[in-house]
């Protein structure tokens, strides 16, 4: 049996927050209420096979019941591969992936996101790349390529543009990462 069932604790439904549904719908999970819990998404989900306790179907049910704390206490949503096979097979056009994504957005607003994600976001802001290896120039040279790819790391104005844009997004209000006008920093391995 998967760890999905390992939750032995009783969930108190009366503590459900009814406005979680609206929050999710506003943050990109517009089709949430179309879900009939048929479990076809779960049947197609890699997270289920890997054994994560919360995945598309269960995330949606928990949202419908307003179980904000239950969801925030668990990091499963951050393991979603964004593979979108659920979106492909969902017979109700719920876009389960978008619901998981919207739940991540809720979590981010409560600062409930894993360190790795924060690092990725910081790296994105600082270098223009969520994945950036400062010493990659060695392997690049080894295979006969210039030290840097033709990206924001080689074009400072492009990086400035990117940072200016990021400062205009919701990220700026959340205070997750410092958002100064930096250049390319040393390393940020994700």
């Amino acid at each position, binding site marked *: 049996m*998967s760890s999905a069932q390992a939750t032995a604790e009783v969930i108190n439904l009366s503590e459900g927050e009814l406005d979680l549904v609206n929050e999710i719908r506003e943050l990109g999970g517009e089709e949430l209420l179309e879900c009939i819990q*048929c*479990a076809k998404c779960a*049947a*197609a989900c890699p997270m*289920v096979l890997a054994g994560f306790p919360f995945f598309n*179907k269960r995330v949606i049910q928990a949202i419908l019941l307003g179980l904000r704390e239950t969801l925030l206490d668990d990091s499963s949503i951050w393991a979603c591969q964004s593979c979108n096979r659920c979106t*492909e097979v969902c017979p*109700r*056009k719920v876009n389960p992936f978008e619901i998981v994504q919207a739940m991540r957005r809720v979590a981010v607003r409560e600062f409930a996101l894993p360190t790795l994600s924060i690092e990725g976001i910081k790296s994105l802001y600082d270098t223009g790349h969520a994945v950036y290896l400062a010493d990659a120039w060695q392997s690049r040279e080894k295979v006969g390529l210039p030290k840097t790819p033709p990206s924001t790391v080689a074009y400072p104005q492009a990086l400035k543009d990117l940072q200016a844009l990021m400062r205009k997004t919701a990220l700026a209000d959340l205070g997750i990462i410092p958002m100064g006008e930096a250049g390319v920093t040393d390393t940020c391995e994700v």
Partner: protein
Amino acid sequence: MPRIGVYICHCGENIAGAVNIEEVRKYAEKLPGVAVARDYLFMCSDPGQDLIKQDIKDGVVDRVVVAACTPRTHEPIFRKAAEDGGLNKYLLEMANIRDQDSWAHWHDKEGATAKAKRLIASAVAKAALLEPLQDRFVEVTKSSLVIGGGVSGMFAALDLANAGYKVYLVEKNPSIGGNMAKLDKTFPTNDCSACILTPVMVQVGTHPNIELLCYSEVESVEGSIGNFKVKVRKKQTYVDWDKCTGCGDCVEACPAKVPNEFNEGMDKRKAIYIQFPQAVPKKAVLDIEHCINCAKRTIGTEPRIHSKTGEPILAFCEKACKTGACDRTRAWNPEGELLELNVGTIIVAAGYKAMDKTPFKEYSPQSPNVVTAMQLERILSATGPTEGELKRPSDGEKPKTIAFISCVGSRDKNYHTYCSKVCCMYMLKEARLIKEKYPDTNVYIFFIDVRTGGKDFEEYYDYCRDLGIKIIRGRVGGVDELAGDRLRVRAYDVDLGNPVELEADLVVLATAIEPAPGLEELGRKLGITCGSEGFLKELHTKLYPVETSVKGIYIAGCAQGPKDIPESVSQARAASSAAAVPLTLGKVVVEPLISEVDQDKCSGCGICVPLCPYSAISLVPRDDKLRAKIDEALCAGCGVCAAACPSAAITLHGFTSAQIHAQIEALTAGIGGGASV
């Protein structure tokens, strides 16, 4: 000056819950022409109606406005009340402050109250201009048309025929029987489908009052209740049915093979074929599109003569036919024959189609061992491709493990959002038949929800579980092909809370029941609409379930929505009894709400003539000039001509220009400037 009475209904809490009745009543009282305004808990009840009758009798009112629910169901009731009070019944107007107001704005009491005032003001404005009108009566042609020869159509036809009326039964296939003829056994009693259906088919085929028009389709419908004129296209069979004895010799001889529709494409039929062994009528049909014209015998040509024997060189079918029914020399008209029928009423029982497996790519439909439930019916049937032996299509082996997948194309926004209603039960039935005949077979059914709400259905479900059929809650996400033509079914078992996989030899898709191809077009010909899901729409879900928006046309069976055999038959017999009423009365009342041409104003321009959907208008000479004339019997009162007439020469009684203008003025008073209502 008219004396208008306004009667406002609370409809229990339905209206009063959102509309401030007393405020509206006081407002109505002061409207121009209103003599009295009253309210009551249920205006349609006896005491409510008495209020109206009494006011008329007392001479207090001579026009009536009822502000209540929908005229669709309640106008006849209030018209009768007005008539009983001694008033012409067309001096009544209704304001629908329930469906159009309180139900729509239940959360906004102030707004709902304001809207109720406007709707009533509008009805009062029209009521002031109402004129007394007289009902018309038309004679009824005492015959009926039934479209569709499945179990619904057959029972509808039999009931009318047994009541003594002539019935034309039109079926598009060569034989009657419909989808039910394909089924093996039927839930919840597991009677053999053929055993209970064949005798009915024979009765229909031999009934003196039933004229069977098989291999035929309705081409056009004109007229209205009592007098429909229907054109029916009898498709060309290329076989003389008067001579054909259904012996099957031609079929035996024919070399051209075509996928067999009756066996859901799992084997082949011939180009010349008898639809199935129990066909009624048992006659051969030549499928000209797949005929290979052997011996170069193109239809309508003389045979070549054998150079040595001097004998004509014939095609295999005509050579085999002992009665001369297959005569390829004859100049058969490819268009078939066009028949014209006159009928008083029509029943539409055009049936359904079970979806094909091909759209469901995630279930590997390219595997021969993925079949639809209808295909499994044919496999299980003694008249099917395996003669009732359970064999999987890839190699004829008996499957050891079978998986059923529910809701394939149903409850699915990509295909059909409705529940097909019969799949849960037919899956259980097929699983049970297999388990009873082959107890060592492993049978799994993957459901979303098990829906077995019907008489004796839950007991049937219990029994299936007792047999060891495994029920898994969780819609299947995918089917992978494995070596040896086996299949892997992947699901999430909701009850276990675990992903599950099952290796199966046969996967059965419970595909959705969908409207028969062409149903929407048929509906258009008949003037009846389809709902968003594509099935024909009944007049009222609860109270008029077999009537349609067109008087004299009734519906039955799966053309109205997915249903099982008991329901289909019940609805068919209900439809036949409704369709018999006008035939029995012999004449029907037609409302006088029809159009009339003012011959002095008409310029004879003829614009109205082609616009009339009922072909009721013609140009006739008057004082040496052509003038429009409307046939009262054909006019349905749609008002298109009145709206289009450039000379304003056409009046639609009950909806005159003056009446409509008065209504619009009252509705819009104060909007865009002036005082609000």
